[in-house]
């Protein structure tokens, strides 16, 4: 059974990883829509602008790295989770950091889940597929668009 198509906002500054993650997502289901931002600064504005029209891209899921230029992932999570209209969009942290402190703090800041990027390409693809299999069976909040 094909997984239901998801709209995913990927926030990642490393181009090689963007290519790899995007490819893994499309290998899971070519109908998943992926939008990429390379730093944390424009994210809130991007989401606010996109959510004003139902035709525009508004994600079911946000995947973000913790180490981002300008505004880092930790600060971005706080901003997202304190935004009245964006706070319910599930955030998956996808990062190379396996520090207990990063994991704990991210959960305390209300992320949905935390994935440490595995080293190999195949392992990364499998981790992304397992995540998308799981999120495909979850009910996403439906009222997270700014009216």
């Amino acid at each position, binding site marked *: 059974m094909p997984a239901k198509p998801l709209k995913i906002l990927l926030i990642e500054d490393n181009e090689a990883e963007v290519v790899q993650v995007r490819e893994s997502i499309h290998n899971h289901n070519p109908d998943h829509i992926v939008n990429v931002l390379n730093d944390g600064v424009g994210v809130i504005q991007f989401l606010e602008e996109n959510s004003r029209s139902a035709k525009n891209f508004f994600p079911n899921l946000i995947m973000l790295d913790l180490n981002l230029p300008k505004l880092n992932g930790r600060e971005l999570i706080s901003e997202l989770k304190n935004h009245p209209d964006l706070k*319910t969009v599930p955030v998956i942290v996808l990062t190379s950091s*396996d520090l207990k402190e990063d994991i704990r703090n991210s*959960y305390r800041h209300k992320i*949905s889940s935390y994935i440490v990027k595995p080293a190999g390409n195949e392992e990364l693809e499998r981790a992304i597929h*397992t*995540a998308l299999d799981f999120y495909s069976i979850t*009910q996403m909040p*439906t009222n997270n668009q700014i009216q």
Partner: protein
Amino acid sequence: MKYKKNFDILIVEDNPADVYLIRECMSDKGIIPHLHIVNDGDEALRFLERKAPFADKPMPKLVILDLNLPKISGFQVLEFIKKDNRFKSIPVIILSTSSSSNDIAQSYSLNANCYVVKPKDLEDFSRIVSSIEDFWMETAEVA
């Protein structure tokens, strides 16, 4: 697939048939000793706070929570977990028969990590339990 060892899961579920199904669908029998089942919201809070008869129980790594529970509702349990500094970093998956958009929205606004509707079909139920296992016990890191 390599599951994490000693991954304690608290299941808050009053329906014995659903508890039975969840246990049966867990693929790795090594997990079974680490499944902790409580049958109402009051027991869930006692379990987390290690009050009698749960004084020797571990802190769960994951909570699977039904919404319609006797005594204290699933929403109240969720709110308790997500407001308490001792527990708020524990991921909570809502597993409910309700597909009402109000229940889904309220769960997310109370900071549930995810919301899964219990399927009626046995095969689908099994698939959902496997997916929870594969993602939360193999792929995701928890606090």
